[in-house]
């Protein structure tokens, strides 16, 4: 299901137009993005947790050339599905 189909289904669920539905979806995503940017984790019950994690810098080797590189530290977003959802999908 791509974004367009998702918005259509969402509008059907809410009983409103697709433009309204896409605006709502955008709001949710933008609030989520901002909270995550501030370093908070977002926990949605029965769905899962979005969390930003800090990855330390590390040294890695390019296998083909044996060139060693220093990979910088970075912030990565992760999603951990809730236990209930995990079981459901099994």
């Amino acid at each position, binding site marked *: 299901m791509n*974004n367009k189909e998702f918005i259509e*289904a969402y509008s059907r669920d809410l009983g409103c137009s697709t433009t309204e539905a896409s605006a709502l979806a955008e709001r*949710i995503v933008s609030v989520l993005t901002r909270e995550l940017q501030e370093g908070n*984790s977002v926990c949605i019950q029965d769905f899962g947790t979005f969390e930003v994690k800090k990855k330390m810098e590390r040294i890695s080797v390019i296998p083909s050339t044996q060139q060693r590189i*220093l990979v*910088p530290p970075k912030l990565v977003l992760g999603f951990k599905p809730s236990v209930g959802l995990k079981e459901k999908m099994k």
Partner: protein
Amino acid sequence: MNEKLYKEEFRNILKREYGMSEREAADALNKFFSLVIKALEEERYVKIKGLGIFKLIDVESRKSVDVNTGEGIEIPEHRKISYTVDSSLKELINRPFAHFEVIELKQDSPMEEGMVEVQPTDIVVDDEKVASENLENTEMEDGVEVKEEPVVVEDANGGVKTDIEAEEEISEKNESEDVEQTECEESMDENRPFQPKEQVRRKLIDRRENWREMELEMEKEERSNKMTLLTISLFMFLLMLMGLLFILAPEFLEEIFY
């Protein structure tokens, strides 16, 4: 920072910022996420703009060991949810660290197999441990020369300290590094590959300090910005006072000037 945002707070934010009613906000949120689940069940793939892709992937059955009992068990095949971050969101999240770049490490001595996987935790976190371990090792090996070595190390430390007294943040970390270094020099003749490790460690520490300096600089800038604002506003205030005086009591000013 580092707080957990639950659905209730999420709802409140929607209410506050977009003027939605309690019910609208709750509806929008609940239906959004339940639709993701539904779509996953039906089509196994959902893509949401600005958020990312949720996908169901198959995991084949595999053998493993029960951690508690040590018995071999078989994990049955199942499906799990995979989540891929939208590239724009990924960039937004990583923005505080975006200025870091991949650095290629130079290397003079030939590569040995033991050197391939240098773990950063070894290098950075356990500096002291590594140093002390190495000390122990050399003690074990050398046996007779044990008594001489600590003296050398102490000397090196003292020398370095006086050299770099001006710098503030040189503490145990550096000391242990120096211990390492002296040992490096000792061991260099025998086994050269030790040197690149030292270089790497140097680089890591250097970078960390740069980072700290940058933060300090940013703070300074903020402070100076505030100061300039204050002075400007004070200046404006004075000007206004002069103007008022000029308008209200010109005779008074004349008295002062002439």
